[in-house]
């Protein structure tokens, strides 16, 4: 700070009569000095300004972080110490939480004009002390002019919510140049949400339409759903990397997505998209630079028709059920246990259903040979777990099994429900029964076979006991379940897959009804469901609820 004293006209001596208040030069805290990368910082604030009203600034040994949170959206910009020309973190207590908050307007005002008149700016020094009341930013401009900003910090909320998403759990990855995406998204600018549909051939982005014509806009409501429908497909050859384990289709908010993609486009870099089923977060990250990276996590939702109003609790608990059964059945069939170890490969969408899991293992990956983007040189990424996603052993939900009645190779449809790891024990009574009874409607022997196979694989993936706990709470119903399950398990080992010739229409019927059922559970309409509701409290096993 001493050096700066000299050039800064030494206010303490000349105008000491007038100057009151703290001597800003004595600020403690982390010091960052940046020259050429200042433009990137100002653009990052511009990008973040579209996401939230506040910026959280965090200082740590690994650098400077700008984080924003807004409801279901989370974005973080990380600047490594190497991003800055010089960086002094000595005064920061690395064990403490070093986060401070400034309003987005302040942040924008600090960087006002930097992006446009970058030639006027020579360098910038940040002095950030998360515990102080002010944040100091000193710009050195041409002609020796200096601009010092002492920005007021806002109070921090007492609870900092940590986002809970894991990039490694996303089973689909796409890497594409931002410049490819920009013109597509520019067309959709007027939409709040967009739908993205992914298959092994490519990526399709279209504006969000809802089946019943009601969208976020009141306008289109009046127009009676006459919104212009725009759809663009990017084929795999335009994508740098496209690893899709299952075709998915989901929707998300465009504004934040576009602002980060615009930022990437200004840098001329690629964006990496990590996503999974609808309901799982979409993670957009920019990893091309060694010294900084950006990560944006957006919530996604599936198509309205298939939306699970319960948020996937039902499927999840069923999955748990299966898993616990799988663990039981594993003891009984050693063959399958050895089998599961070998069925690790990624699931190729186009392969025929569950056959592949047991039959000759199809090692075909869905990555295209022409480009494989290098592992990012980004220091943040390399320090984490390897980018490869965890290989799912079962990427079919409980739902699929029902559909498999006719044993057609089941494409990963948008209908697949999100599998979320939630434990909601009270729902178990319903769904266990649901699954059971639906299986009884279908060909009883067939479906559990499929299910059993899945169970085996699920067990690998989710190897925690909660499923067992769930199981305990529904003892009576389980018995029935187990009976259904275990008998076919034995059959499973010996026989290969049978051909099932169930008629097509049946499949559709099952789906529709299940949707309604799920909705009714929550809405509480319908006589049958009322009965079920009361069952909850009695924890009596439900009688077979016949689906008409």
């Amino acid at each position, binding site marked *: 700070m001493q050096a700066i004293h000299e050039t*800064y006209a030494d206010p303490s001596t*000349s105008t000491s009569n007038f100057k009151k208040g703290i001597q800003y030069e004595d600020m403690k805290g982390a010091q960052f000095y940046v020259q050429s990368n200042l433009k990137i910082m100002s653009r990052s604030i511009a990008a973040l300004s579209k996401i939230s009203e506040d910026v959280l600034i965090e200082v740590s040994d690994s650098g400077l972080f700008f984080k924003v949170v807004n409801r279901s959206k989370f974005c973080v910009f990380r600047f490594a110490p190497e991003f800055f020309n010089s960086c002094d973190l000595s005064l920061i207590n690395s064990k403490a939480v070093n986060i401070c908050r400034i309003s987005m307007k302040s942040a924008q005002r600090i960087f006002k004009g930097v992006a446009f008149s970058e030639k006027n700016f020579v360098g910038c020094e940040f002095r950030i002390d998360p515990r102080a009341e*002010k944040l100091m930013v000193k710009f050195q401009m041409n*002609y020796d002019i*200096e601009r010092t*900003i002492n920005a*007021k910090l806002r109070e921090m909320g007492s609870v900092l919510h940590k986002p809970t998403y894991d990039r490694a759990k996303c089973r689909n990855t796409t890497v594409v140049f931002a410049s490819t995406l920009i013109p597509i998204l520019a067309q959709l600018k007027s939409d709040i949400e967009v739908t993205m549909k992914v298959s092994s051939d490519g990526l399709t982005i279209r504006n969000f339409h809802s089946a019943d014509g009601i969208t976020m806009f009141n306008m289109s409501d009046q127009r009676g759903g006459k919104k212009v429908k725009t759809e663009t497909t990017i084929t795999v050859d335009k994508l740098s990397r496209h690893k899709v384990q299952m075709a998915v289709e989901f929707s998300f908010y465009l504004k934040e997505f576009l602002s980060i993609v615009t930022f990437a486009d200004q840098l001329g870099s690629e964006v990496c998209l990590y996503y999974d089923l609808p309901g799982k977060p979409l993670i957009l990250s920019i990893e091309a630079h060694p010294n900084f990276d950006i990560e944006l996590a957006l919530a996604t939702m599936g198509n309205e028709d298939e939306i699970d109003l319960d948020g996937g609790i039902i499927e999840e608990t069923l999955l748990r059920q299966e898993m616990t059964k799988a663990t039981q059945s594993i003891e009984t069939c050693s063959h399958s246990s050895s089998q599961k170890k070998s069925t690790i490969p990624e699931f190729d969408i186009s392969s025929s259903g569950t056959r592949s899991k047991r039959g000759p293992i199809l090692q075909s990956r869905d990555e295209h040979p022409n480009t494989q983007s290098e592992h990012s040189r980004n220091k943040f990424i390399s320090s984490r777990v390897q980018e490869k996603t965890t290989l799912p052993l079962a990427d079919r939900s409980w739902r699929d099994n029902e559909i498999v009645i006719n044993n057609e190779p089941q494409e990963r449809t948008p209908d697949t429900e999100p599998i979320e790891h939630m434990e909601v024990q009270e729902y178990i009574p319903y769904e266990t029964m649901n699954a059971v009874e639906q299986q009884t409607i279908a060909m009883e022997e067939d479906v559990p076979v499929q299910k059993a196979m899945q169970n085996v694989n699920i067990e690998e993936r989710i190897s925690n006991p909660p499923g067992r706990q769930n199981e305990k709470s529904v003892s009576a119903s389980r018995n029935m379940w187990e009976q259904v399950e275990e008998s076919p398990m034995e059959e499973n080992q010996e026989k290969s897959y049978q051909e099932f010739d169930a008629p097509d229409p049946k499949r559709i019927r099952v789906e529709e009804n299940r949707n309604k059922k799920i909705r009714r559970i929550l809405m509480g309409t319908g006589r049958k469901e009322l009965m079920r509701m009361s069952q909850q409290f009695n924890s009596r096993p439900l009688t077979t609820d016949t689906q008409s």
Partner: protein
Amino acid sequence: MELDMSQRTIMEMKKENVKEFAQILKTVVFKDFGMLYAFSTGIKITVDDGAFQQANAFLNSAFFSDFKVRENNIALKLPIKTIYEFLSIPDGHSNSVKISYSGTFDPLKLLIEEADGCIIRGKFNSSVSDQELDFEFDDRAVPVTYLLKTQVLKDIFRDFDDTSRIVKVQLSKSSLCFSTFGEVGEITVSIPSKSLQMESVKCSEEVEYTYLLSLMHRMNAAFALASKLILRVDDRGVLSCQFSIEHGEGRSSYIEFLTVPTDDSDE
């Protein structure tokens, strides 16, 4: 309108390239009415807000292609904002304006002639001059004088934090600092004396005064047009900014802003 020999005007002038004239007027017209004083050497246009600020534009006779003033003490109160709008009507540079005034109770007549033959006539009624604000700026009691280029200062003034009510100006031998106190906090811009933007500094005493930001903003247009600025304060804190505008061929015009400091204490 032809000059009627039977009716002598007490002043008349002609100016080529109306745009130039309009631009200069724009820098001073922050109020609807202003005063026009005509002398044999040129004209002075004065606008003031009655309490805090006064702007003067000095256009000497060389600015005009034809300049005749036949009387002394010509002082007219005119709707100069309207005159400015009138002068902004024509586009391009190949036009000219003739200004004539026949005496009290007669309107000020303006005639614009464009290259394509289009003629625009205007008559503006004058009134008796109000009491003029005299800032009593004492040229001798000036502790600090800076001669600066306007290039960067223009951006500095434009980028002042709008949420701040005041600008604190610290004038010292080593630098000139402007501070604003707004929503974001305190923003200070300092121009050291050694900067290339600063051509000369004369400082006998280091002082600091506060001015209202809204008054400073009135000078933005002048910054845009001028090439150099002389910044002075007198011993009461009245800020005098004298802008020099080059028209080429050695001709120049001057604009002066006199601003009174506020009494509020700093934040």
